């Protein structure tokens, strides 16, 4: 038996994670993070989500706490998200929240409070290779969330637990219904928790930074369209470029925010042999050689090869990854590490 703190978002996965830990005989406490005080219609910290998490904790007979990480969330997730858009990068706030809030500040606090492990409802698994802990994809391929956890180190994994990683989403919901948890049929959270459906990205960002119209040019520099806000354009994007009637599908090849210019090309113009990367994180030792590469949260992986300097060569030319996005490396089910696209 160990003492486990489980992060409960008010969703079904973390509810069942808590239940499984209680069933396994651990001494369990639940915590819900209050991250965002602004308007929101989904995500993990509205009052009703906290109420749901608290009620599940009551049903399971475990203590429940609420920790307010609002200042840290603003500083380490929201501000960088805004800054990234301002400089033409494509941020992943869920990754940054995991990196700075859940698996740094909260993990540290859990340890200081005498908990042996921190658990979450993420769909992924912890395996072992000799004495070392490894991070594996979740059993349900459609729900695998290992991608957003690439920043975890081996020593982090020693202090973590992902109780629902062995279950499919359907099995998680079935367990929640068996236990009569009020979160059993709650919809999955989507997108960015602090951006409401109503305001959207542009509404959120326009409250914080000026958004600028931009011109769309082809690879030869000819003006072919316009966008209402160059800060909202992402490499690889196809829609919203004002290119109606063009015979070929056009994609964003690059974004130049200072010059308010978007360059668009056809699909093959996006293809590249090589992807430059920065800010690598490795679960264990740095890896060189062939890897399977995933470039979005639920995307398919493609084969590539990491060189000594940590850059990636694709086996067959692949679409350029939007600068700022996470690029995550696997061998089989095992996550090796990841980095950000430059």
């Amino acid at each position, binding site marked *: 038996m160990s003492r486990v703190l489980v992060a409960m978002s008010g969703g079904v996965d973390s509810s069942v994670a808590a239940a499984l830990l209680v069933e396994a005989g651990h001494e369990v*406490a639940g915590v*819900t993070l*209050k991250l965002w005080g602004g308007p929101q219609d989904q995500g993990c*910290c*509205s*009052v009703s989500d*906290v*109420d749901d998490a*608290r009620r599940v904790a009551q049903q399971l007979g475990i*203590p429940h*706490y*609420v*920790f*307010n990480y*609002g*200042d840290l969330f603003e500083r380490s997730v929201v501000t960088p998200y805004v800054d990234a858009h301002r400089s033409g990068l494509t941020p992943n706030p869920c990754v940054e929240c995991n*990196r*700075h809030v859940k698996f*740094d500040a909260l*993990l*540290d*606090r859990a*340890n*200081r*409070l*005498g908990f042996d492990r921190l658990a979450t409802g993420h769909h992924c698994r912890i395996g072992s290779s000799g004495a070392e802990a490894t991070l594996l994809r979740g059993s349900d391929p459609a729900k695998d969330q290992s991608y957003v956890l690439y*920043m975890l*180190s081996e*020593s*982090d994994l020693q202090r973590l637990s992902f109780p629902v990683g062995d279950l499919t989403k359907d099995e998680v919901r079935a367990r929640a219904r068996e236990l009569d948890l009020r979160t059993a049929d709650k919809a999955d959270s989507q997108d960015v928790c602090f951006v409401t459906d109503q305001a959207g990205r542009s509404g959120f960002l326009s409250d914080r930074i000026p958004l600028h119209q931009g011109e769309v040019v082809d690879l030869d520099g000819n003006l072919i369209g316009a966008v209402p806000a160059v800060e909202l354009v992402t490499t690889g994007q196809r829609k919203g470029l004002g290119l109606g009637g063009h015979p070929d599908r056009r994609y964003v090849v690059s974004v130049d925010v200072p010059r308010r210019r978007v360059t668009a090309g056809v699909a093959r113009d996006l293809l590249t042999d090589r992807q430059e990367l920065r800010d690598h994180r490795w679960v264990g030792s740095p890896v060189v050689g062939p890897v399977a590469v995933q470039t979005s949260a639920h995307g398919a992986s493609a084969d590539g090869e990491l060189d000594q300097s940590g850059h990636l060569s694709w086996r067959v030319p692949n679409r350029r990854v939007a600068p700022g996005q996470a690029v995550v490396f696997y061998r089989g089910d095992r996550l090796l590490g990841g980095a950000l696209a430059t």
Partner: protein
Amino acid sequence: MLGEPSAYLDCAASTPMREVAVEAMLPFLRESYANPSGAHSMARHARTAIEESREVVATELGFSPHEIVFTSGGTESDNLALRGVVVATGGLAACAATEHHAVLHPVQSVDGLVIGVQGDGSVDLEDLARQLDHARSGGRPVAIVSVMVVNNESGLITDLRPVRQVIDRHAPGAVLHTDAVQGVNWVDPRTAFESADLVSLSGHKFGGPKGVGVLAVRDHVRLAPQILGGGQEAERRSGTHNTAGIVALASALGELGRTRTDTNIRLASERDRLADGVCGAVPGVAETVDRAQRAAGIVQLVIQGIETEALLVLLERGGVMASAASSCASGAMEPSHVLAAMGYDRIAAAGSLRLSLGWSTTSEDIDRALEVIPPSIRQLRTPVGTAVR
């Protein structure tokens, strides 16, 4: 959890009911359940109990019985006072920046004025005078000023007389409201509330039940009701009387009046032992307000290098129930607006702990707190080997 020995040091949040209050309310839950506004004998019996309670409350507070309005609690009393006077007079409301949200939010809701405070949390009387003058010269004078007798976070006691003098000089005709939800425990109401025109109380803060409160309103105050209906409480607060709650509140207030002086002496000494014990055991812990200026039962500490929401987890594990500043609807701790107004930054305020004693607090509670709090602070200050990111 429940049933294990614990030290309850959160009396400013709520107190256990006094036995006299429990005994007083039971007959009105079981037998005398009739609506006190009715015409038959059972109704008259309930109504008699309410009027007797009103007399007890009036005597304790130094008001006349017809000046006592029963409400659902402190928050409703504060809302009725502030919004009621603003609606009735068309004037402005003003309050100190360190007021409870039950005062601050109603004042802000009617575009009222927020008065600054000094570093110890006391009202900045010069700022009050300046803002009252400004409102008057702007054509919409202040009609009500609200200043609490005892602050719920810091325990600071405010003498209302100098506040009254500033109001009379700079906003003649304006009334003075005081949120005495904490204060009634610690100061003699008849002298402390003498300068006030309106006084709010909440039953459960002094050994009465939750869901019942008082607004004492002097005769000359123009007040518009905020809850309309059957016209109870002389048209000032509609809604069927909470007979059991009102009777229990009056019983608790009566016992408070009989025991206040002795309890204050006893708790001041326990509070000193608690504050000295914690501050002496670990470095980097300080009280926010001088004891001489503070209610006997409240200790507010600012603890360097920790966050209270983590400390409370360890205290609870050790059987000590305490709190930080105010909580929001989700249960998350919000940075204290009281400490912010006193000039503390957010990092310092995040380490604030409120230990509040009450009529039920024992020496053993303080012993337990002294065993648990210092090692908990040390534990949180000890870094864990974590990877640097």
